[in-house]
């Protein structure tokens, strides 16, 4: 039986990079149901990974105001991305899913920038690896 509160297992940037899934947003106007499901699944997975990372870094960052600012920004962006993932398409608006994907992509890009800033604070040598992994 899985524990209700699983132990944090992402405790470093390299561990997060290994676990992240690259997300590619489609450029076509038409987005199929399957594409949307896959995008949201991978985005949610990445949000979970980055949330574990934030929870791991927060106690150590409590003595450094600049670290706290960036970690809190990442946490806000993660919540925003999760909120966008929860939105569903309205049937009569065409093209279907395009509005949802556009807003999700915008929120995801902001989250990506916040993650890059967190990486720049702790292990800047992994900035490019993290950008590609996200």
């Amino acid at each position: 039986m899985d524990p209700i509160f699983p132990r944090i297992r992402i405790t470093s940037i390299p561990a997060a990079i290994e676990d992240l899934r690259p997300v590619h947003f489609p450029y076509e106007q038409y987005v199929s149901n399957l594409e949307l499901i896959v995008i949201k699944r991978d985005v949610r997975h990445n949000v979970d990974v980055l949330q574990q990372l934030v929870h791991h870094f927060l106690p150590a960052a409590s003595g450094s105001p600049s670290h706290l600012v960036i970690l809190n920004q990442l946490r806000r962006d993660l919540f925003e991305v999760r909120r966008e993932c929860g939105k569903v398409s309205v049937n009569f608006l065409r093209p279907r899913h395009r509005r949802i994907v556009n807003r999700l992509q915008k929120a995801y890009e902001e989250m990506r920038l916040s993650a890059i800033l967190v990486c720049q604070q702790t292990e800047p040598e992994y900035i490019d690896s993290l950008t590609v992994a996200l």
Partner: protein
Amino acid sequence: MRDRREDVLSHLGAEYKDALLFTVELRRAIDSFSGDIPADSPYRYLRQTVGDAIISFLTRADKPQSIPELVDELKAGNCLFGAIRSAEDIVRKAVAAYVRSKRLVWMDAGKTKVGLPAWKKR
């Protein structure tokens, strides 16, 4: 052809991993030096985060700066940005986070110049 491709890929992967490990060791060597880097050094922002570099520049400049001016200064001081995302995006994001936490403020209504909170009361 396929074997050659895989050989080249594995060679490049090994080089990339070695370069990353070397970067980690270089970073440890830099951090082992005590004391601050001089304010006029071309590597003055090497050990600082983007936010701290912006605050230290604004403290020295003593006047509001725009985002492009901040980017130019941080690049001149060799602040680490990575090669994929643009420095403008990263600085803009850092400024937004710091303005939100009130460590920086927008000095004008058009949000073109950023400054320290104490300057707003001037």
